[in-house]
């Protein structure tokens, strides 16, 4: 177990090193940060002088070396736009994104398990056909369209939910202020979470359904029926538990992917998280922030995958982490 974690730690460092190298190599193709820093009529001389001050005229090796040295000391550079250390900016934006992902995850879990189980045990009912039909639509509409349609329906036409932003927040600790502490906050987080969940929900319903249908055919379920155990107990305790292993595998990977989808969702809802921040940073050629974001997201992927592996062991004790390492 310990050896496994140590190995994962070194993997994480290798992943982040590669990401930093790649993101550093492409930054010259992202545009000229000076354009976003100065007004249109500023002369080329002044621009050149600022480029020198920023160290943008140094060679790639020199720039990367300076970056790597600072990064080892926990300094990923200073954001041109926010004028704060890039890592601080990201940490400030992180809670908003994590809450959004958390909200979406709650919706996914809350809906996909009952719907997945239902469509498995009643494969031919009308409700099943409707659910499966809707999930096809859900999977094929891009998230920004879903989001805008929702805004026009719930905010403009029905006036039930606010159209943008995070609303009133309740401060927890440090940079963390939560949407889950007030009614206004909950109203603000509902639509973005639903929009984000809409991408993954169909996938999970279908996954649970197919796994569940397979399990229901297995010998031990038949035996349980024969023994006279209540169907409800068979479905939700005996069968469901055994369908969850592949669901957790996919879920772990998809939660990472969901962090990527927050870029679109946050932009549409003006959600002040790190996805929106990243898109803005690309538009403004805020290269220190872009590089830092990619490294942090890489780190999140490694961490979620490690956690998934650990959960494996809890759900299925036959998996031995020590051997995996």
């Amino acid at each position, binding site marked *: 177990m310990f050896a496994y974690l140590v190995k994962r730690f070194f993997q994480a460092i290798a992943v982040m090193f590669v990401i930093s190298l790649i993101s550093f190599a492409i930054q010259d193709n992202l*545009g000229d940060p000076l354009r976003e820093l100065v007004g249109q009529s500023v002369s080329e001389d002044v621009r050149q002088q600022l480029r020198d001050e920023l160290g943008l005229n140094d060679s790639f090796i020199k720039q990367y070396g300076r970056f790597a040295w600072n990064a080892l000391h926990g300094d990923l550079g200073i954001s041109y736009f926010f004028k704060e250390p890039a890592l601080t900016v990201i940490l400030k934006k992180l809670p908003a994104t994590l809450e959004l992902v958390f909200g979406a995850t709650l919706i996914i879990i809350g809906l996909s398990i009952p719907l997945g189980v239902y469509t498995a045990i009643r494969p031919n009912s009308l409700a099943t056909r409707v659910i499966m039909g809707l999930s096809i639509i859900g999977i094929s509409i891009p998230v920004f369209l879903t989001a805008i349609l929702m805004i026009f329906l719930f905010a*403009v036409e029905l006036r039930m939910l606010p159209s943008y932003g995070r609303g009133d927040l309740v401060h927890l600790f440090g940079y963390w202020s939560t949407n889950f502490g007030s009614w206004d906050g909950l109203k603000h987080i509902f639509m973005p979470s639903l929009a984000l969940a809409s991408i993954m929900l169909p996938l999970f319903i279908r996954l649970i359904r197919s796994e569940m249908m397979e399990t229901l055919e297995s010998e031990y379920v038949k035996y349980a029926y024969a023994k006279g155990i209540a169907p409800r107990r068979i479905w939700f305790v005996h069968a469901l538990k055994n369908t969850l292993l592949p669901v957790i595998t996919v879920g772990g990977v998809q939660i990472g992917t969901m962090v990527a989808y927050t870029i679109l969702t946050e932009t549409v809802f003006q959600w002040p998280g790190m996805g929106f921040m990243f898109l803005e940073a690309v538009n403004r050629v805020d290269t220190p922030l872009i590089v830092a974001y990619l490294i942090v997201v890489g780190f999140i992927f490694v961490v979620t995958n490690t956690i998934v592996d650990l959960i494996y062991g809890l759900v299925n004790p036959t998996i031995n982490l020590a051997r995996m390492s």
Partner: protein
Amino acid sequence: MKIFGTFVSACALSAAVAFGASAASLKVAYDADPVSLDPHEQLSGGTLQLSHMVYDPLVRWTQDLQFEARLATSWEQVDATTTRFNLRKGVKFHSGNEMTAADVKWTFDRLQSSPDFKGVFNAFESLTVVDDYTIDLKTKEPFPLVLHTVTYIFPMDSKFYSGMDSEGKDKGEIVKHGNSFASRNISGTGPYVVTEREQGVKMEFDRFAGYWDTASKGNVDHITLTPIKEAPTRVAALLSGDVDFAAPIPPTDLARVEADAATNLISMAGTRIITFQMNQNRNEALKNPKVRLAIDYAVNNAGIVDRIMKGFGTTAGQASPAGYLGHDASLAPRYDLDKANALMAEAGYADGFKISMMAPNNRYVNDAKIAQAVASMLSKINITVDLKTMPKAQYWPKFDERAADLMMIGWHSDTEDSANFHQFLSACPNADTGDGQYNSGNYCNAEADKLMAFANGETDAAKRAEALQKLEGILYAEAAFIPLHWQNLAWGVRKGVHAESIVNALNFPYFGDLVVD
């Protein structure tokens, strides 16, 4: 922003008492928020919009582009190069300090050291303090745009910005990238005090209880400014009542905002010209004025404004919009396909040729669509266009390389004067003077440059107008560039927000004077 702490709550309290029942609060949504609280860090629309809320200029533009006295009460020409300004008395900064000539001098010196603003103040020699409420502004040569430039002087609180901050750095320092006292703290004389700021998320303002302009009817005592980047979301926020004032409104949503029972649309002809430049050094054919004229005749400006801009623009035949000295109403947009084909034949290019074209896709309203339309219009005169569109972040480096034969550029004159268009867009490129910095067409006409130089040193408005109009005439006759249209401006407001009188073509809404029912 702790530094505001106590005195902000005092302001809020007295504001509530002073305005009583008529006080209103306003939620504003823009597409972006100001990059910094430092008014001299970046010369951009966002910075100036903020400056008009937190500071006051010495003089400001009215809606019909005249000058209005603000912190300067009057001015007179002392000699050919000196203008004397009398300052308003009894004006308080948000910190409680009183504004005097020393603050104006301090601000002027700071402007001259700012990378972004020093270009604007190039023509000025010095500012001298005559007494506490009188200053003399001296230019190097006789200069016609003294008042135009003075609209950029927003006196800063020199006592507030002097000394060292907690890290031992000068509080007045201008830092383009990184932390500085001035980028995080602000004290002006303006109608609003910044009470809270979370960059990229929101800004909160309270009305300044000690505001000097007691004649102003403005009754908004609290403003929340939220950047909403996505246009559909911004419009939705306005339509759903989540914000009271939203800008810009994209062309596709104009009708909707206008038709909605709860909102009003305010639109106005803007002063930003959208053009294409034709690079004579890259493409031999474009050296021939006949070919350039043919291209101009082939482009249907009215069609672009009508179909792509949904009427949200004013067709242009020149750079100077109506109201500018150089505007010549007789220089109408040209469109005549037969004539265009005839000109191509005359120039020996009846069979046409190939050219490359580049345009941004997120800088100007519908920029990429406009470029596509122009490309297809040029195919009618047998010019085959290889078009590339890209985000502005990648476009500007390409523009600096002059990477295509036809390149799109929009321009707004920082001085609200015609000469500025020619200086940056069509003057002979000159690395030493910086003239023609954005002239990717490499158009060069000595006579035109002479007229510009004359206009820049002539203080008689009638003579300037004559020279600048003659200049526009030369550019028109030789088709120095392809003018398309001036982008309109549009603001959406909730009914009851009387913003018609506080907006202007410069896009600096004067929120201090805003009346809300």
